[in-house]
């Protein structure tokens, strides 16, 4: 009986802040607007534009389907990156107070990561839903999975930037700059061959997704690279967040 009570207490201790972190996000109207605008913009408009541009570049093979798939990937990733960043910037001081009140720093860090992961899942589903209005992926599961992994990577990047840069404006610029580097300069449209681009967050997710969309084989090791990237980004973000939130 005591064990049941202790479990219920622990569940309440973790579920309450988690629910409230997610609630905070959805009470911001701008987040809801972005959740609609960004997928539409990146998948319908940008995806189309990217593939049309590629039509004029004989050395680049990028069909409309591939462009739209990339748009969905970046939509899920960018929305989750924004979530991670603004969650950190808007709640850094209050999170520290919550730690001061009795939560372990590691609990708050974990709960923030879980809430970003949950919101990232929603961003991925919305982006995937918009993509489905334009094409039907042959491999639903892997397409969804690679989009979600890219979203998680960007969620960690957002948390990392939000932990390190306290200014909302400066941090937004940093995230946007990072995203532009990744989505535009690192995109297949530019025919980038430098190995340095492999260090951009969506390099391998984009490779896998393009192969899936084109129904071509891809190297299994790319999945491993994606997971390694996610682990490294999450570790860095976790350490930075922990240092920002801990009680001295």
């Amino acid at each position: 009986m005591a064990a049941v009570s202790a479990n219920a207490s622990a569940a309440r201790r973790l579920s309450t802040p988690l629910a409230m972190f997610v609630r905070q996000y959805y009470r911001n109207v701008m987040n809801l607007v972005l959740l609609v605008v960004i997928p539409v913009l990146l998948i319908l408009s940008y995806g189309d534009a990217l593939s049309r541009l590629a039509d004029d570049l004989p050395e680049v093979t990028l069909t409309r389907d591939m462009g739209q798939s990339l748009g969905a990937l970046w939509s899920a990733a960018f929305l989750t990156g924004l979530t991670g960043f603004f969650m950190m910037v808007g709640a850094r001081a209050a999170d520290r107070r919550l730690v001061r009140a009795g939560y372990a720093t590691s609990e708050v860090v974990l709960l923030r990561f879980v809430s970003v992961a949950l919101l990232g899942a929603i961003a991925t589903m919305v982006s995937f839903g918009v993509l489905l209005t334009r094409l039907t992926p042959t491999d639903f599961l892997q397409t969804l999975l690679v989009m979600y992994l890219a979203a998680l990577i960007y969620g960690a990047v957002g948390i990392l930037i939000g932990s390190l840069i306290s200014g909302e404006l400066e941090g937004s610029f940093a995230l946007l700059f990072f995203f532009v580097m990744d989505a535009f300069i690192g995109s297949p449209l530019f025919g980038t061959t430098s190995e340095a681009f492999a260090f951009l967050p969506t390099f391998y997710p984009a490779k896998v997704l393009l192969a899936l969309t084109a129904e071509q084989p891809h190297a299994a090791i790319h999945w491993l690279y994606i997971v390694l990237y996610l682990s490294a980004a999450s570790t860095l973000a976790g350490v930075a967040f922990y240092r920002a939130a801990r009680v001295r």
Partner: protein
Amino acid sequence: MPADEPLAQPGDGNPGVQAATHTVRSQASTLTAPVPRVRVEHVAKTYVQRGLWPLVRRNRVLTDASLEIGAGEITAIVGANGSGKSTLMMIIAGVLERDAGRVAVNGRMGYCPQTPVLYEKLTVAETFRLFGIAYGMDDGSIRRRQSDLMAALDFGDYHDYRIEHLSGGTQQKLNLALALLHDPEVLLLDEPYAGFDYETYLRFWDMSEELAARGRSILVISHFVEQQERFHKIYRVKDGRCERER
């Protein structure tokens, strides 16, 4: 605060309060001399602002600050703007790292920062619940304390309001109420009544005196000490040190 609306008492069903009382009692039974609730010794703090390399600006705020607060005492920290009052309190509260010195706090602490530090998208009730759980309180205790504190600080009508929709004064009341929620032995209040109307200001002092009478230790930062008789001790932060004025 009306006498028939007491804040949580030891043994009222709040496990956090009982645990804290036990801590205090065990100290009283095992120690012969009274132990200060808060002891700060030789604390130093320098803020370092880095500009373009190699430019570094160092601002030595505290050089050798020491103070003591006993049980049941209301203590003021006063001083000019930028003298280091808030820095000292943040160091005691554990939200800022010190460069040197020692800080010892006996008992649970409640900290009310100078500006409200709250989740602005949550409602007042959700905020009480979140911080109550953080303090380890059960749902019944959270509800009772919330009701008592909102009545005592006169913002009972704002239960379901989001914090972003509250006035600055009401946010400050909630900011203070969160520090009091778990009935801590040590209260650190950084200009807690900034933005209060006069009636709430008086209520605040009634509440503080009642808490002190129950053995709670209160440290208040204030720019002005118009009513010196309210404080048992007054420390002035000046030139990086704490000078006891009273």
